[in-house]
């Protein structure tokens, strides 16, 4: 098995194994030090970020909102984990010089051209739909996929199957051969 891939990355099997060890260590560490077992996740942080931002303009509305109250608008363990992903990616890409400023994804540009406005409109629309879905399902590919399957959660298997099968269908419509 190759240790490096064509784009200078680590073998996905090696990186994945290390992510698995990190997930185990994280579950152990949160239980020991925080008193509550926490699993890797990301999408709840977007709720807290939305609440923090909305609170600056409409504090009463956030305080009165049932969902914000349920999820607790604060910078918690997962919020810092998500910020950490940013930092970790920055450190890693600076170290191996794969850091690259990019305004439009190359694959998108090939299909839809270099317009940032067009990409922005679709990225924002996709983001809204995806986050409404992730919050409804109560997880994203990290929380449901990674953490859910590790725990053999029924919801993890069903959610990941839904995410991926619909993703395959929509991606074929948007980027597939027939439409290009």
């Amino acid at each position, binding site marked *: 098995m190759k240790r490096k891939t064509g784009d200078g990355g680590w073998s996905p099997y090696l990186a994945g194994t290390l992510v698995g060890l990190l997930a185990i260590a994280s579950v152990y560490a949160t*239980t020991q030090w925080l008193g509550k077992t926490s699993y890797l996740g990301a999408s709840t942080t977007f709720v807290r970020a939305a609440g923090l931002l909305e609170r600056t303009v409409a504090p009463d509305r956030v305080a009165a909102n049932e969902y914000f109250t349920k999820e607790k608008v604060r910078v918690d363990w997962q919020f810092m984990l*998500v910020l950490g992903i*940013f*930092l970790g990616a920055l450190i890693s890409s600076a170290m191996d010089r794969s850091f690259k400023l990019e305004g439009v994804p190359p694959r998108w540009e090939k299909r839809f051209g270099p317009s940032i406005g067009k990409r922005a409109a679709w990225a924002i629309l996709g983001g809204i739909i995806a986050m409404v879905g992730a919050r409804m399902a109560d997880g994203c590919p990290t929380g449901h996929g990674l953490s859910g399957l590790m725990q053999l959660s029924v919801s993890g298997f069903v959610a990941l199957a*839904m995410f991926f099968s619909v993703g395959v269908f929509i991606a074929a419509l948007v980027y597939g051969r027939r439409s290009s």
Partner: protein
Amino acid sequence: MSTDQWLGLITGVLFGFLLQKSRVLRFEKQIGAMLLKDMTIFKVMLSAILVGMVGIVLLTDAGIVTLGHKSMNLGAVLVGGVLFGAGWAIMGFCPGTSIGAVGEGRWHAVLAIIGMVVGAAVYAELYPFFKSTVFAWKDFGKIGLPETLGISPWVIIPLFWAGTISLFLWFEKKGL
């Protein structure tokens, strides 16, 4: 910063580092998987799951950690799953990878993040409506595969390993 914030930050830095090293933060990798042409994200995710499930089930059996299943609410997981899948394909990032993509300079992922923060605010407004409709259909609760099937996790895990490794061999054979 408090202990939980520090612990989250350190875990996140390591997670982001590994995700970047495996190159899964790229728009191209996400779309590549959905077009069934580049299975890198599944190789990383499934390898992590293979290792993680053994450790987590062992720690649970030893009474050291507790499982935190998410609810198998039929409407929520199915409808939410459809919406997430569609949005994921359009934006080309998932919540965790979007923030990492910005870290490696792909700043267009900020647009996806803006969309997701707006989406979270929209969801918070719609929550009471979903609670009385979609969520009210059928809730199986926080269930795991072993108790649902009545099979020990130590039977499920070897089967899952065998299936996943066969899938990996097939990916490599097909050059995916």
